[in-house]
């Protein structure tokens, strides 16, 4: 088999601050990109999909395992690859053509040859006439076209795309996605294969021949779904909808096995119950957002399909799933077989007055969100009913990298404040037991 790039048993750990061990982002991942195919890496945030892409591009080294590209082990920026970035990553002080020429310049091409090739690539992405414009004069969609031209011009074996359409508005993204797909189907694509990272299920089914589904905590391959549709993939085909719904189902049910052509070893579940209350990550969602989603589902009638719901809300799938996770964590909703049902508590929370829903929220949080419950208990047991934030941040640091620890802490604070369990003084960085709780 003519695989161009393969990741073999790749793992990635990041050291936690102050030598508190390691945080595992990827755990024993095998991924292969063959000649002539489009592969999508589909996963939620925390599945390490972007990290995996960067390891395969040779931008960061794996902690263990290896990446092979055209038969060579990758030990630095991978010459077979050109990358399209989510944020475009254009140098603002270079014109369009200078940005496109960047990769050619690095390969030591002469000025005339560079200009010739760059003009051709700019033509391919439809930016004729904008050669000497600066990125700040362009719209988001045009900026990403420059990003594509910069990648096309070096004629890579594999084009890597890191959520290339997610920074664009819906219509622009749709348009550009369509054009890239047409280019691929026409057989004039300037690369042999494509590897795209996405959290957008529809996008994966539309563009890819194969979808590799990644699981979270730590990132691992759950399985591969082959998109057995003739190109271009017709969105209205029954099979398209079937595959999309199946993938939605897979994404909302972390334990569900993924029908896979490649055998994936059964993973031992890490013992969830005995873990520290700080080890279980909270979805970063505001309480008001949870309430908003529940109200919508109540209005639309319970038993909604997750796929349909996500579409109607026009929310990024990642955000949508995080809100749903939070609702499930608080026992306000249940997901089974790709359908959302609202629990009686959830219905009450969505419809009651502010004070009543706060009381309910307080109960649910204390029962089902161990980290908030533990913080509250700690404050209650203290003589002066206050505690420095650093105390809890240190505990979180044991399980997360610094930025994520801070984010976890902020979410816990947000929920606890809403529940009026405790107060937080951001200037003093100190937690204080809420008056209601203190009196109780």
């Amino acid at each position, binding site marked *: 088999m003519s695989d161009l790039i393969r990741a073999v048993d790749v793992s990635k750990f990041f050291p936690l601050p102050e030598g508190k061990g390691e945080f595992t982002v990827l755990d024993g991942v095998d991924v292969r990109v063959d000649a002539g195919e489009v592969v999508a890496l589909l996963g939620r945030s925390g599945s390490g999909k972007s990290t995996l892409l960067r390891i395969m591009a040779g931008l960061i080294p794996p902690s263990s395992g290896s990446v092979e590209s055209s038969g060579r082990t990758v030990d*630095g920026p991978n010459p077979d690859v050109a990358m399209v970035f989510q944020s475009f990553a254009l140098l603002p002080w270079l014109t369009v053509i200078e940005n496109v020429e960047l990769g050619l310049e*690095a390969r030591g091409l002469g000025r005339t040859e560079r200009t010739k090739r760059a003009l051709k690539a700019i033509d391919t992405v439809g930016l004729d006439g904008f050669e*000497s414009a600066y990125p700040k004069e362009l719209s988001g969609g045009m900026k990403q076209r420059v990003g594509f031209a910069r990648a096309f011009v070096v004629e890579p074996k594999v084009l890597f795309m890191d959520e290339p359409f997610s920074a664009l508005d819906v219509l622009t993204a749709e348009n550009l996605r369509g054009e890239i797909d047409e280019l691929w189907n026409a057989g004039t694509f300037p690369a042999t294969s494509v590897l795209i990272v996405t959290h957008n299920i529809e996008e994966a089914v539309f563009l890819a021949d194969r979808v590799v589904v990644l699981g979270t905590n730590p990132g691992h391959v759950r399985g591969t779904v082959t998109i057995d549709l003739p190109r271009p993939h017709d969105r209205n085909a029954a099979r398209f909808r079937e595959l999309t719904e199946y993938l939605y189902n897979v994404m909302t049910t972390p334990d569900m096995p993924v029908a896979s052509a490649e055998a994936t070893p059964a993973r031992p579940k890490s013992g969830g119950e005995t873990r520290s209350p700080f080890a279980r990550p909270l979805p970063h969602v505001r309480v008001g957002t949870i309430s908003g989603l529940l109200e919508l589902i109540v209005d639309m009638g319970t038993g909604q399909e997750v796929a349909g719901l996500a579409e109607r809300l026009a929310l990024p799938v990642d955000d949508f799933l995080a809100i749903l996770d939070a609702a499930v964590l608080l026992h306000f909703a249940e997901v089974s077989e790709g359908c959302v049902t609202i629990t009686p508590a959830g219905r009450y929370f969505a419809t009651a007055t502010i004070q009543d829903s706060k009381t309910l929220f307080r109960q649910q949080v204390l029962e089902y969100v161990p980290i908030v419950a533990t913080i509250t208990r700690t404050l209650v047991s203290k003589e002066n009913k206050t505690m420095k934030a650093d105390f809890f941040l240190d505990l979180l640091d044991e399980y997360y990298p610094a930025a994520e620890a801070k984010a976890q802490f902020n979410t816990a604070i947000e929920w606890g404040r809403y529940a009026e369990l405790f107060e937080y003084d951001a200037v003093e960085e100190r937690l204080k037991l809420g008056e209601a709780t203190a009196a109780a």
Partner: protein
Amino acid sequence: MAQRMLPGPGSLRRVSFGLSDVAVFLGAIGLLALIAKVGAGAFTSFAPPQVVPAVSLDPRNLPYYAGRSTLRMFIGLAASLVFTFAYGYAAARSRYAERILIPLLDILQSVPVLGFLSITVTGFIALFPGSLLGLEAASIFAIFTAQAWNMAFSFYQSLRTLPSDLVEATAAYRLSYWERFVRLEVPAGMIGLVWNAMMSFGGGWFFLAASEAISVLNRSYTLPGIGSYVAAAVTAKDMPALGWAVLTMAGVIFAIDQLFWRPLVAWSDKFRLEQSASASPPQSWLYDLLRGSRLAGFAGALWTPVSDAASGLLSSLTQVRPRRAPGPRGVIADRVYTLALVVLVAALVIAGVRFIFAAVGLREVVKVAELGIYTSLRVLILLAFATVIWTPIGVAIGFSPKLARVMQPIVLFFASFPANFIFPFATLAFLQYHIPINTGSILLMALGAQWYILFNSIAGAQSIPTDLREMADDIGLQGRQRWRRLIVPGIFSSWVTGGITASGGAWNASIVSEVVTWGTSTLTAAGLGAYIAEATSKGDWPRITLGVGMMSLYVVCINRILWRRLYALAERKYHL
């Protein structure tokens, strides 16, 4: 927007010289001639140390002297730039280098470098025996010390805060280290670099004036220049000559602003990191002229093959090599390195303390510490007065966009005018009206330092969002309440920035403003600055070391105790 990339067939015929080309051509020729004339002076006036070049007080010589001084300023700036790239790059790239270089930079930034002038002058004279080149180098070094630290720190900061997606893009497209440097790292730091260089250029004039005529080790040295002209005029009590010097200085500062800094600022605006265009880009007539001129474009085209070849060579020398596996030795090497650093610093401190105590004893150290208190008090009083006087004026200017447009360049001009040119006038006034120098020196220090408070008050007031001001009007916040609730919190961050800069300037100025002369009469205040100045002119090494060390200690302590905290408070609570 669509512009032709390659010259079309008709383009040759269209090459005709416009008015802008004539102007650019004449300007370029004139500049070259000027540099040749002034630069030649620096070489022909080599003289044995017995023959100290005299400075003629004929005002007709002033343009030439100003030219000599300006040349020094630009050589100092170029040296600062080279230093900035090397130092900032090393500090940002090597973890080991960072741990020495950044604390060192922090100290150099806050220490009154003017106190080191005597040390460097002696060093450079020894380096070039029998010629004026040593003095020339010492003066340039003084200018360098006024600029280099700020610039290096700014470059280091921008290297540390490069947008990670751009760093990844340059790595993914396998740019060599040289290409990353010219395509990403320098452009990303450009705006900060230009701004910092421009602001510290003013400080450079101050140091230049202090370093052109200096007495070190019981000897006076004079270097032809506008600073030594002022010194000579003071000795000769020549009031008209002083007036001419101030006028010339003002003209030079104005010209350099128009011909150098403004075009540079206008050009550097394209290095903004935001992906959207700025609302009101800085303007410069000279920059527009150069851009409109075909001649400049033609010169650029001639240069292209040369720069291409050079950059190709540098790129091939700085290819990114495959990474090596990180070894386990990291932790141990780290500890050894830290230990070595601690030992080194401790050894230096012990050596310094022994050197001082061997010559002066504890009583003098206590006395110098007391002098330090006087100077600290002067700095604090100055800050308090400058704040009370200039903040309301600054806020008034900042709240009126029209006034701000007119006043900001004027304030910037005053800030970059070397205050020591005004000192003789003030000294004369002190003598005439019997103002004691102990309080008078506060005024002298304020001459340079106060502008930072004013300038930052204006900037702070401008940064208060209009809707907040409208809200304050709407709910009828007035007088004291308006200041307490809106203005003070709103300008606090800017005021802290201004305060730090002003206090740094004032400490430096204390060395030249606690001892002033007019003709043969000398006024000396009780203070650390006067102590250092006296020790310097006598060439008393232990006392120079003690004085400078004590002042550094004061400055670093006040920075840690006062400014750091205010800064943290501003960041935490009053960030708009």
